[in-house]
């Protein structure tokens, strides 16, 4: 009896069998890990149980992947629509600043297109939003978001830093599928590049508030450099200096400040935390 052959046979009629069973690699590893305790005669029983659960489960890995990708797509629609309006508003200084907004807008549009196609390929139905789905004043918190350059950049920074935290938090939900996980990581680091650049723009334009607060391309402690507590939830937790139980401040006898220790690691947020942050931006 060769399990690989059995799975291959099933794959002929159900291409998603490996998704249902976790992935090919992890299926094999799970078998390997638990080996040695089962008699070959009992194997068919174990297999039957495995398939029954895989096909009956309402939260099979494929569903988790589609839900996760749709969550990512929702955030990409938010960002894409924001930058479309930001560019169209025409208040960015012409030249480098307008170019940067355009570069980022195009990436977010590409992310929307890519995720829609990935979700369809996975057998899911992509969520859909239009311009009227959004309220970028966040229910009046940022009334001048498309008429004041500083406000626009502050909202942009918050979206990018939040997006990085969102993808980071969702990555484990994609661990069973190499292709989707890798693609999500590839989007994640692009959002981080955007975040760094927007932060540079805010600093260069001297748009940091309150006075005395600095903003660097990386996140120092839980500082936003934005004078409204409305965005603080996007930065809370970034002050963390303990990773996997290891204290990073002055680690190994090196002179590493708490600021540097917090900057060196970006922190994830859960789906619920992200939803709470972005909900005001939906009409």
């Amino acid at each position: 009896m060769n399990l690989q052959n059995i799975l291959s046979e099933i794959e002929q009629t159900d291409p998603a069998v490996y998704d249902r069973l976790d992935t090919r690699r992890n299926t094999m590893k799970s078998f390997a890990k638990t080996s040695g305790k089962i008699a070959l005669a009992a194997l068919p029983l174990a297999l039957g149980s495995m398939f029954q659960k895989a096909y009956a489960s309402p939260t099979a890995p494929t569903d988790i992947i589609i839900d996760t990708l749709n969550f990512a797509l929702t955030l990409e629609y938010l960002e894409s629509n924001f930058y479309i309006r930001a560019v169209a508003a025409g208040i960015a200084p012409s030249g480098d600043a307008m170019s940067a907004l355009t570069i980022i807008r195009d990436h977010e549009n590409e992310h929307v297109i890519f995720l829609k196609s990935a979700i369809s390929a996975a057998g899911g139905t992509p969520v859909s939003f239009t311009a009227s789905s959004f309220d970028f004043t966040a229910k009046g918190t940022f009334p001048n978001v498309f008429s004041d350059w500083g406000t626009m950049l502050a909202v942009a920074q918050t979206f990018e830093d939040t997006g990085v935290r969102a993808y980071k938090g969702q990555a484990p939900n994609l661990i069973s599928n190499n292709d989707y996980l890798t693609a999500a990581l590839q989007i994640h680091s692009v959002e981080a590049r955007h975040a760094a650049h927007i932060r540079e723009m805010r600093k260069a334009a001297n748009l940091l508030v309150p006075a005395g607060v600095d903003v660097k391309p990386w996140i120092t402690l839980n500082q936003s450099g934005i004078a409204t507590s409305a965005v603080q939830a996007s930065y809370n937790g970034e002050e963390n200096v303990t990773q996997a139980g290891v204290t990073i401040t002055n680690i190994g006898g090196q002179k590493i400040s708490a600021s540097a220790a917090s900057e060196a690691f970006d922190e994830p947020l859960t789906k619920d935390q992200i939803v709470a942050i972005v909900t005001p931006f939906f009409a």
Partner: protein
Amino acid sequence: MLNESKEEQPGLVYDGLAKPFSRRKFFGIMGAGAALMVTAAACKKSNPGNPGKGGVDLGTGDIGVLNYAYALEQLEAAFYIKVVASPFKNMSDMEKSYLADIRDHEIAHREFFKAALSTKAIQSLQVDFSSIDFSDRTSVLGTAKAFEDLGVSAYNGAGKLITNPDYLTLAGKIVSVEARHAAWIRDMIMVNSFADSTAVDMNGLDMQRSPNQVLSIAGVYLKTKVDASNLPTD
């Protein structure tokens, strides 16, 4: 410290070092597995094409992937320590400050992996920076850009090799900081190159590279040879 499984099953492809798959229903479903599959999985693992045989063995499974990250962080930290200690001509105050920040971040990453891997950590690697002119801004920032982009692509490509979701999150915490570094350094070289077409493709995706691809590039700067042949490949 990274968690280690209590189970020891020598010879298995699953190296027994990572935590159980807490998020995987499959593990719970299968009360047992087939000895047959051990052989099949082990065969699948062999990858004679890997370069670097005879160098420092990164190891297998998640620990191997973490050692791979540790090797790259050692390289980056060593580079920025030298950049800050011997500043290029006309380094601006902002450049001094930010390059010192980056040095500290990379030291923090290096020391984190060393502490977390503990007895499983590879040795300290010897670097070879003879091709870099540390007095020249173009040479230093060009190398920094290459290292940061390489680091981003390495973590992006290594994510799928990790089986423990907690380790995946740790890698994610680091890669976005490397991407922030890459963006700033690119902008210092040429404004608005933070995510240009040499870094981001037509789908808006950053680069990803396999360990072999990464180490063939990084190897130029490593005196100590690194052997990635036992790393997982998918």
